């Protein structure tokens, strides 16, 4: 196995692990926020606009972290290791 193939394989694996982590964490977090919001609205329907505001605030703050992870993952994949160039080089 050439070293380029090894680098490409390791980078793609690392990208997969990063996406796994951020997707799992943000999905759990979003689920918790939304379920608590539904519970709160069921308990106090008159406070609904306020609860919606804080639900969207929480989801917006939370969504930043998977997106930061995604951005760093793409940076790793496309700029640091430059996997598309490696793959096209390997295909020759």
């Amino acid at each position, binding site marked *: 196995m050439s070293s380029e193939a090894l680098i490409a394989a390791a980078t793609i694996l690392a990208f997969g692990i990063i996406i796994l982590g951020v997707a799992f964490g943000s999905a759990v977090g979003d689920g918790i926020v939304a379920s608590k919001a539904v519970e709160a609205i069921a308990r106090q329907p008159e406070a609904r606009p306020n609860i919606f505001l804080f639900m969207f*605030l929480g989801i*917006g*703050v939370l969504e930043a972290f998977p997106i930061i992870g995604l*951005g760093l993952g*793409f940076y790793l994949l496309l700029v640091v290791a430059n996997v598309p160039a490696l793959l096209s080089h390997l295909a020759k």
Partner: protein
Amino acid sequence: MKEHIGYHYTAVWPVVGSVHTDTIYTTWLVMAVVLALLASVGSSYRRPRVGKTQTVFEGVIEYIADLVHGSLGKSGEPFVPFFVALFIFLFALNQFGVFPFKLFGLSIGGSPTADLNTTVPYAFLIFVLIQVVAVRKKGVAYFKHLAQPFPIMLPINLLEESMRPVTLAARLFFNIFVGELLFIIVASIIVQGVMIGPFNLSIAVAIVPFFIQFFNFFVGTVQAFIFTLLGVVYLSLATGDEH
């Protein structure tokens, strides 16, 4: 691929040194557009009829004013114009990436907020505003909160305080930047003409940018609002009474 990841036109200007010219020109253009829009809305109050634009802007301004009053109480009144302006300007900056000026070879285009050089100064502005307002209100005794509840917590409190502008800037930057990155990745898939058996994946993928644009509109609005709201919350935490 001509469009690089995080690519900016750079130039060396006198005094300031190397700058991202596309970010600066786009910010000026957005400033001009927003100022013209707000001037037209302001001057429309001379007419007796209430227009649709007026109603929309009054809704936005009252929403943010309610937010500031709810968090800061009566003392928040002077900050309402600042936060309204911050929200409207950040919203316009985030949404300006829709126009593909860069494709026509112009030196403008793209969201200026997809550049750390735009988001870091705004976060720093909020940080300095909070310190100045808190010191004006409480005097030098304000810095005692860094040694609360025990003096040994000083490094942790210092880290927490200094990480706030960093996360504020990074959150806005990465959200807008990834929105533009997704376009580049989808475009590169379309250009490469990927075939899966007899099917051309590129044609199927060509509908995806349409949905990414909706996602970007939502994300830009929410992130502008969150930037403003977190500014209000941090300000209320710094100037509020001890509990």
